[in-house]
């Protein structure tokens, strides 16, 4: 196990800044997920930790040892790649034994470790096969096995599940998490899939355009996104954003008002939002924070016009129109909602998110 520390790490490709001022401490045994849209610098950061990419500025430490100029082979790390990167001309056994052989580990020790790891991953029967004779899921297991068998200080995962089909991905996600709990080695996992990030990470780093947007535990990021980008990126289906919402003060109370919508501001957000009175902000509301109600006078209730109804089983996604804007609501499957009708919705006021219209930073 090891601690990985990045201090003001930056990477430039020519004039293009890929990673900018990245600072982070990854604790012993932590499962850290880097998530962000493609081109956000998450893979580049991972590759810099691996030593496959030079660092333009800053410092990287693995267990208090500065590794800026340490070649990949001396960093004691293992990486699992998106395309598995199995050697096609070697058998599963040879693939897994490759690193150990290079380290001159005795033959019977190699046999034992490969056997144990293969048993743990359920690939004991395939040891003699070539990678091309395996399915995608099995290949991914071999790739994992090849990393595990070396017992490195840190595991690096570069979108390891993206080449698998949806069902297998969910299964492997679970297995990876179990595996991490069993082995407990510090792991850094890169993905563009926010669900993967939420479900697997002890902590998540959300990145955009080479910059860290927010670091935190999954639910913390979900509940308290620091800006509009994070709010939109984390959560599925994505948060509804309503721009040009006016903040108005009426006595002690604050309201956010736009055409067809007038929502009181929850008490805990009042103080932060008070300076915005009379100004326009962006309102964010997650689809799951909108529910159907029978009481038109309830706080946060409003009428909307149903355009599309999408039942998904445990939820019904309803596309509604409010004052010329489209919103998505995720409501109970018991609802009898129909298209081209009005529906009475209610927003969970304590979960509303407010963003500065200019900086897009979260308010409160």
């Amino acid at each position, binding site marked *: 196990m090891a601690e990985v520390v990045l201090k003001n790490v930056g990477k430039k490709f020519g004039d293009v800044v890929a990673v900018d001022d990245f600072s982070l401490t990854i604790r012993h045994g932590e499962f850290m997920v880097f998530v962000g849209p493609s081109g956000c610098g998450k893979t580049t950061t991972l590759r810099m930790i*691996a*030593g*496959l990419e030079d660092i333009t500025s800053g410092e990287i430490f693995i267990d208090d040892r500065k590794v800026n100029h340490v*070649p*990949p*082979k001396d*960093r004691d*790390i*293992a*990486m699992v*790649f*998106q*395309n598995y*990167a*199995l*050697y*096609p*001309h070697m058998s599963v056994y040879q693939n897994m034994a*490759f*690193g150990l052989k*290079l*380290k001159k580990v005795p033959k019977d020790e190699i046999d034992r470790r490969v056997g144990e790891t293969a048993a743990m991953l359920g690939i004991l029967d395939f040891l003699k096969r070539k*990678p*091309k004779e395996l399915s995608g899921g099995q290949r991914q297991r071999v790739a994992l096995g*090849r990393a595990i068998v*070396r017992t490195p200080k840190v595991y690096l995962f570069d979108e390891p599940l993206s080449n698998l089909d949806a069902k297998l991905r969910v299964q492997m996600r679970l297995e990876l998490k179990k595996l991490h709990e069993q082995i407990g080695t510090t792991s850094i996992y890169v993905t563009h899939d926010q669900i993967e990030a939420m479900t697997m990470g002890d902590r998540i780093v959300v990145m955009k355009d080479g910059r860290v947007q927010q670091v935190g535990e999954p639910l913390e990021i979900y509940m308290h996104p620091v800006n509009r980008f994070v709010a939109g990126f984390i959560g599925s289906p994505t948060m509804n954003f309503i721009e040009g919402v006016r903040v108005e003060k009426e006595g002690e109370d604050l309201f956010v008002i736009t055409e067809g919508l007038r929502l009181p501001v929850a008490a805990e957000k009042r103080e932060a939002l008070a300076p915005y009175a009379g100004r326009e902000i962006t309102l964010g509301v997650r689809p799951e924070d909108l529910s159907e109600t029978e009481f038109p006078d309830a706080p946060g209730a409003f009428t909307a016009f149903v355009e599309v109804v999408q039942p998904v089983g445990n939820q019904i996604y309803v596309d509604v129109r409010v004052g010329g804007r489209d919103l998505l609501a995720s409501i109970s499957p018991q609802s009898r909602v129909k298209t081209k009708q009005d529906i009475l919705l209610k927003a969970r006021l304590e979960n509303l998110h407010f963003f500065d219209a200019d900086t897009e930073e979260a308010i409160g």
Partner: protein
Amino acid sequence: MPQKQREKFFRFYLPLFLFLVFLLFPFYWMFATTFKSDVELYNLKLNPFLIHTWSLANLKHLFFETRFLRWLYNTFFVAITSTVISLSASLLAAYGIQRIRFKGSNLMGIGIFFCYLVPPTILFIPLATMIFKLHLWDSLWALSLIYPTFLIPFCTWLLMGYFNSIPKELEECAMMDGASRMWIFWRVIIPLSLPGILSAGIFAFTLSWNEYLYALTFISSSLKKTVSVGLVTELVRGDVYHWGPLMAGALFGSVPVALVYSFFVEYYVAGITGALKE
């Protein structure tokens, strides 16, 4: 015949058959001429496509009255040495340019390709001076060293394309496992590039085997000629063409190349398409 089969016949088998006839006819012509007597060959009243009376006279002429076997050996020697030299250089060059992205690597790749574009008709005069100064005039080593001048650029480009199809992650993974560059090159890149290396090798071998201009310029003694030069210089005397032995020489000269191709045809196709199928 059902509609589908008929369609396949007209769209596939018929064109294939015509193509085969077109392709194999020269070989048949060589074969037929080889086994005809001179009398039959020059008798215009006979059907030229058939052999009426079989004769081994042309073979006897070729094998016992010329130095054909020696030429065959020379050609093999030159083709194999120049192929080995070219492949060794090209493998390193292609890997370096493709994977060790040093400054100017792209430029170097393009530069090497330009070398291939310079025609031998321009190069043979300066090369002749060099060969002379190296005291390699009229030596087979002259050809073994000159052929790589056009083989290396060609093989390098072919191998660069092939290396490009090998995922970079394989090397990166090996690097993290503790392998050195050379180790990766030998244990990962070379085994995975075998189809590419074989097709580059076949190309190099064929090009050297068929080469004419340099062999004609740099070799003068009969004992050191290659097949392509030997046949033309010793079986065409003035304006007299010894068609029988010439065709026999052409036939036996093309057999080794045809064999090489047919043995490695699968690798060859994989090498050209550059596909590393998982």
